């Protein structure tokens, strides 16, 4: 298990690299500051499990640089063969319904589960 924590957020990569769980608010300054988190995400693609999960249900806020980070990860997952990527989202978090559809436009096979 690996963590990246900041003043307003917690990110955890599961032991078997099957899931990355995000909590809090992410408003880092540009792609340079998001690079360690993108690297953490990419670890799930090294020896991918059957289904990779991004759990965003408790990620209450994400700025546009964060959206760019997720879009880069999704593009990378899309461009590899046989990656099954699932996003767990919440109807009670306003940005999920508004912005996650853009990730699906980048990767039509992306499975977004809104609960």
């Amino acid at each position, binding site marked *: 298990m690996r963590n990246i924590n900041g003043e307003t957020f917690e990110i955890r990569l599961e032991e078997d690299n099957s899931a990355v769980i995000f909590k809090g608010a992410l408003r880092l300054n540009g792609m340079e500051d998001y690079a360690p988190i993108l690297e953490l995400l990419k670890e799930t693609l090294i020896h991918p499990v059957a289904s990779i999960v991004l759990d965003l249900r408790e990620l209450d806020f994400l700025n546009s640089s964060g959206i*760019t980070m997720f879009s880069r990860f999704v593009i990378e997952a899309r461009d590899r063969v046989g990656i099954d990527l699932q996003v767990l989202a919440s109807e009670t978090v306003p940005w999920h319904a508004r912005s996650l559809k853009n990730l699906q436009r980048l990767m039509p096979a992306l499975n977004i589960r809104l609960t």
Partner: protein
Amino acid sequence: MTSQTLGNYAERAGKCEYLTLAFSPLSAPLRTRWRNNGLSADFLGDYVTTFLPTKGSVAAAESRQKEIRHAVTYIANELLENAMKYHERDVDIPIGIHLELTSDRITVSVSNGISLGQAQRYKTFVERLLEGDAGDLLLRQQEESARCNESATSCLGLLTVISDYDAQLGWRFDVHPAQSEVMTVTTSAVLPLKDAPGASA
């Protein structure tokens, strides 16, 4: 010409609820003050909910308030991040954010100082943005950004404000009265209140 507007620039409405904050740009480096963008944006989002009508069921009103609070916070955060990033250093022009609430819309506008060269680059981007569909442009920029890193990410936030929040953006460029090599750019974002009294469905 001392002033130019592009897009749907929202002039101040006059008599309405408003709030203005101004930040001195010289006191601390960007990295140190970055967290203040989020604090200020959260404050604006919370502040505006005081003035939203609470009609219908409690649950519906709460849900609508949450949506609007989030939209104001997101938009204010994006505009402030851009203003802080692109503000011309060594120029004593404050970075300002202004919030207005009328019966049918919320306007967030942010101003900062920029060099003439930066103003020209920004105008070129805005003209490209106004010609196309923001959602399509956003996708293209995200693909480009995945291929060639940082260069393509600039102003991507503005595209999300249009495509994900249905905000109408406008820009005003003013030549600084005392320093002709500097301009003040003001970006306005109008968020229509869809179920406001008198608003069209």
